[in-house]
């Protein structure tokens, strides 16, 4: 079954992972800007990162027939650094017109601090100014419930924000209702040790319906599985869910959300000829 991976940090992954994703049916993915695992010391680092997300990574993905889209921001893990945030936000607009950019993300909160909230507000304001969609990261573990409430409250404080253009990701059983009841789109992240397992994701969809929900691997440099979506497809088949329901979650719902941005065009993939990575960089 063809699928779309809506949340993958591919700069952390190898060509082997791209290959496995392509072999298991991945036709497109989106890569939100992320934390490097340590705090960057210069806004110049982000400029290089944004070039990597908009120039280099799409070329790697195209070698496997996968369309690569991206979201730009300073990740919530670094949101505490207000000076850095201001410098990085000033550099984002010039990248927003690039052909694989879907919007601002993944923004949100990490430890639910006042400074993180200020950085979140600045990102939302930037998204509204540029009519960009938003991808939201919700905090981890004990911070998720409170953080999701704070994020929703902050989003709703902007009068011109359409919740259908906002995806709130990493939802779990205790946050999904507040996300959907307020009209936002909802992402479930399939992780081996935290967030939700394959079985819990299937449970959530059974209990809350497949409307406006997509699943993702959020694969990065930590414990994560780049082929989590095909594993989820197997889990749903194990329970005898219809192919139509599965396809809605792994293919149609991401398309419906991403298609609100003119840059997203799946048809383009079959028209494009993958460029060789060696055009950009020497690879042994």
């Amino acid at each position, binding site marked *: 079954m063809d699928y779309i991976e809506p949340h993958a940090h591919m700069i952390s992954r190898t060509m082997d992972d791209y290959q496995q994703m392509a072999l298991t049916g991945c036709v497109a993915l989106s890569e939100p800007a992320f934390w490097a695992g340590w705090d960057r010391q210069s806004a110049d680092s982000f400029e290089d990162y944004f070039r990597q997300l908009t120039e280099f990574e799409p070329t790697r993905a195209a070698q496997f027939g996968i369309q690569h889209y991206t979201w730009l921001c300073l990740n919530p*893990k670094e949101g*505490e650094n207000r000076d850095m945030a201001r410098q990085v936000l000033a550099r984002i607009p010039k990248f927003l017109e690039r052909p694989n950019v879907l919007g601002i993300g993944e923004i949100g909160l*990490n*430890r*639910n*601090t*006042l*400074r*993180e*909230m200020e950085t979140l507000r600045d990102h939302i304001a930037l998204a509204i100014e540029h009519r960009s969609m938003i991808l939201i990261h919700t*905090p*981890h*573990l*004990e*911070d*998720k*419930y*409170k953080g999701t*409430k*704070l994020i929703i409250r902050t989003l709703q404080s902007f009068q011109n924000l359409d919740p259908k253009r906002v995806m709130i990701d990493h939802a*779990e*059983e*205790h946050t999904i209702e507040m996300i959907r009841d307020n009209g936002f789109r909802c992402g479930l992240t399939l992780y081996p040790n935290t967030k939700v397992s394959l*079985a*819990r994701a299937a*449970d959530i969809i*059974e*209990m*809350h319906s497949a409307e406006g929900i997509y699943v993702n691997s959020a694969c990065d440099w930590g414990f994560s599985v780049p082929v989590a979506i095909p594993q989820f497809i197997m889990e749903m088949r*194990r*329970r*005898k*869910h219809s192919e139509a329901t599965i396809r809605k979650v792994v293919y149609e719902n991401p398309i419906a959300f991403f298609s609100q941005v003119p840059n997203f065009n799946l048809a383009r993939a079959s028209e494009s000829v993958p460029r060789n990575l060696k055009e950009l960089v020497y690879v042994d």
Partner: protein
Amino acid sequence: MGNIDSCCPLPLHRIVDEYFAESRNKLLELAAFFDRLDRACDAADPDGEFRVVALKRAARVLLEPGPQRVKRMALMLSDPTEEPRGYLDRKAAWGAYSGNGEGV
């Protein structure tokens, strides 16, 4: 019968067939974790660790009637406060609420 609007497509015996072995394993892993705490080389009291206390409290939900045991457990392990932290105490979450929305 549960809520038919949110039912799992499998009948009960098939759910048990499919998920019993892995659920049994997860339960034994939790028991092994508690046993391991008791064997800690410093003989410290596991109940002096707020995360262990929170996990034991949440585990009681397992034997309570449904529905939404996962949601109830997740809420028991969550920070229930409403206002943002005034300062960043640490980069990573603990996994359970420390009892202080300002951090430990």
